[in-house]
């Protein structure tokens, strides 16, 4: 019985760990797409963020500084994406693809310069802390490796991700800023004719999405693991994108989708560890196949914000 409970706890714990980076990026995706701009460059932004986060944390010894700089790194790519899509009516998907090349390119370029030609960083001296251990002392609050410990004693980024979802929900649906952002995504001409700056809102949203994707990358490189490597972020940005669509462009929906994806990953790791008689190679496809099955069977034609992907051009004023 106890092992069963612990197994469950293990799966939940792994789920939370793997979901967290996705949640950051997916909420970023919600914010930008709600303003009407597709950001398929989340992957590149996470990648760059993961590198910058680990590099800064390595050199400064301060994981939080690394975490913040990771956000800035993502935001800098977000700014580029915003310039292209908002100011110069770029094809949003094409510009996003460019961001993916640039994110990988900048990360590895700088990595080779700073880490002696290597495409990975060295291990950071301090990871993002576990706040419960920090507050109450290690093993003090919950028995070590017990159910509560496995489930709740998680990196600060996990808590932050949940707080972020709440904040994003609050801002989007309960504040005037959020209402304006959603109006811009649905009907930019209407918002514009009421004196709302589509330009500012969209710049803000795209840069924020980059910032959050960068944080998501760092949540991977300096919390889940303790260094950046060139294989660390492999498709997470795209999965976050899928989670956002699956979550119907809502922060709370994206959270749920990320948890399902993380859960599939947790289950995969658990079944692998337990030696379930399914080839582990095929088991690895579980999260991806599950996502497709859910999209096909469940979500189908969900409605994106009305103006998404369309060019809003005020013409020459």
């Amino acid at each position: 019985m106890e092992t069963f409970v612990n197994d469950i706890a293990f799966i939940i714990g792994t789920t939370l760990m793997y979901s967290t980076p996705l949640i950051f990026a997916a909420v970023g995706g919600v914010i930008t797409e709600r303003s009407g701009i597709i950001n398929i460059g989340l992957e590149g932004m996470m990648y760059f963020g993961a590198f910058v986060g680990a590099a800064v944390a390595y050199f400064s010894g301060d994981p939080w500084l690394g975490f913040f700089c990771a956000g800035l790194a993502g935001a800098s790519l977000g700014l580029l994406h915003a310039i292209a899509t908002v100011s110069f009516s770029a094809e949003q998907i094409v510009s996003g693809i460019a961001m993916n090349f640039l994110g990988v390119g900048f990360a590895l370029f700088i990595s080779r310069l700073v880490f002696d030609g290597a495409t990975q960083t060295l291990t950071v001296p301090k990871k993002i802390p576990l706040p419960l251990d920090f507050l109450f002392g290690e093993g003090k609050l919950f028995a070590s490796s017990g159910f509560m410990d496995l489930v709740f004693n998680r990196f600060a980024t996990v808590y932050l991700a949940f707080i972020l979802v709440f904040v994003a929900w609050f801002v989007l649906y309960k504040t005037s800023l959020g209402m304006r952002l959603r109006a811009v995504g649905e009907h930019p001409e209407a918002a514009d004719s009421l004196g709302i700056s589509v330009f500012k809102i969209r710049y803000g949203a795209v840069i924020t999405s980059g910032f959050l994707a960068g944080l998501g990358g760092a949540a991977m490189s300096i919390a889940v693991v303790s260094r950046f490597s060139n294989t660390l972020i492999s498709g997470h940005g795209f999965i976050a994108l899928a989670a956002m669509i699956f979550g119907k462009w809502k922060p709370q929906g994206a959270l749920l989708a990320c948890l399902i994806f993380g859960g599939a990953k947790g289950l995969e790791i658990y079944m692998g560890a337990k030696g379930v008689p399914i080839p582990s190679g095929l088991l690895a496809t579980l999260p991806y196949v599950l996502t497709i099955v859910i999209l096909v069977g469940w979500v189908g034609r969900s409605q994106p914000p009305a103006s998404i992907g369309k060019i809003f051009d005020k013409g020459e004023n």
Partner: protein
Amino acid sequence: MTSVDFSHKTVEMIDVVKKFGDFTANDRISLTVHRGEVHALLGENGAGKTTLMNCLYGLYRPTEGVIRVNGEDVVISDPNVAIGHGIGMVHQHFKLVEPFTVAENIVLGREPTKTLGRLDMAEAERQVAEISERYGLSVDPQALIQDISVGSQQRVEILKALYRGAEILILDEPTAVLTPSEIKELITIIDNLTSEGKSIIIITHKLHEIKLVADYCTIIRRGTFIDRVEVAKVSEQELAAKMVGRDVSFSVSKSEVVQGDRALTVDNLVVRDNRGIAAVNGLDLQLYHSEILGIAGVDGNGQSQLVEALMGLRQVESGRILLKDHDITHATPRQIIGDHHICSIPEDRQKRGLVLEFDVAENLILETYMRPPFSRRGVLDNGEIYRFADHCAETFDIRPRNTGLQAKSLSGGNQQKVIIAREVSNNPDILVASQPTRGLDVGAIEYVHKALIEQRDNGKAVLLISFELDEIINVADRIAVIFEGRIIGILDGDEADENRIGLLMAGGSA
């Protein structure tokens, strides 16, 4: 019309010029409006009316010229500035956020808030209720825009302006989407507003409405100022001549033709719209050869869904569509066009009618590309395709004559000619024309009407769907009125008068 205060000029636009690149949309146009005045801005489609008003509302910046509001020179750099000067605008295509509520749409951009930037929707709804009562504009603040009628949506747009303290209200083609009874309501609202001292500018090309509501009228043509007149002192004919630049005959000349055999029967048809509502709800209809059957009705009464069902683009829930005695209810678009010879001029030519990125020639073969001579065994024959296109360009006067140009580079009228050329060359038995003259200028409208009448004279059956009552009365041989997805009355063309049809369109009985 007695409320005009001539001592107070609220808006003066003096020699306003607006250029887009090399194109001059407004060439030194002047306009003056007084307090309490209803001022009509009259001109054809594309004359530059909306551009001029967008300059006043700050959506465009004039290239040259002076704008004065209440006697002071102002520079209106964006809508916020316009709103600050008490200018409000109701656009022809409403700018409403569909999934938002009425109250959210009205307060958007000026939301009442509590601490932390939290929205105070209770306060918003209270304020909306207050102004809607004051000016007699009834709306439900909590209803979603997507669930309310077009007339209510227009009231929301007016409330948006009033909420922002508008003293000057610009209405762009406000009656285009309204039923005759809704138009009467709107006129009452306008009277209420002017008696409160507000000034109103109405953009329109409908002459009798100008006679009904406006005190003064400024007429522009092809971007230039033509005249400013006191409405009471001119006739509709005079206004029309000034608008078009030549005398206009209001009636379309057509010969008498004897109605032919039955071509199409629609029997108790039910079709659902995207939201699952039965937009066509038990509709019956007979269409005969050698006639133009006009479908009159206000936008949103199931016309679009009827046409989509006829053309195989929307699934039929129940009921039947019969071609003579042949059931085509569930035929595919290709079968309907190719085998059953029903062609259509779609209501939105840029959305349904043309592939804008294709050139004219490619658009002309959109329904016939898979047949000889345009292709053989799956391979296109460009020689034949462009020869055919050049022939069409001559016959249907498509300008410019270069059929290698992308369709999007053509004017609206010529785009419509491409569609008509394609559909007519396809030699259909039945032609379904939805809003075939929307957004076209007078010359192009005449062209389209002639083409439809020619089809009917050649023994074809023509179904004409239009929101423009004048068009239906002028062109159709029989008129069926559609209301809430049903035909609620059929009249002969000669016995039809506007009042009777208008009553039916609003759901009354004639």
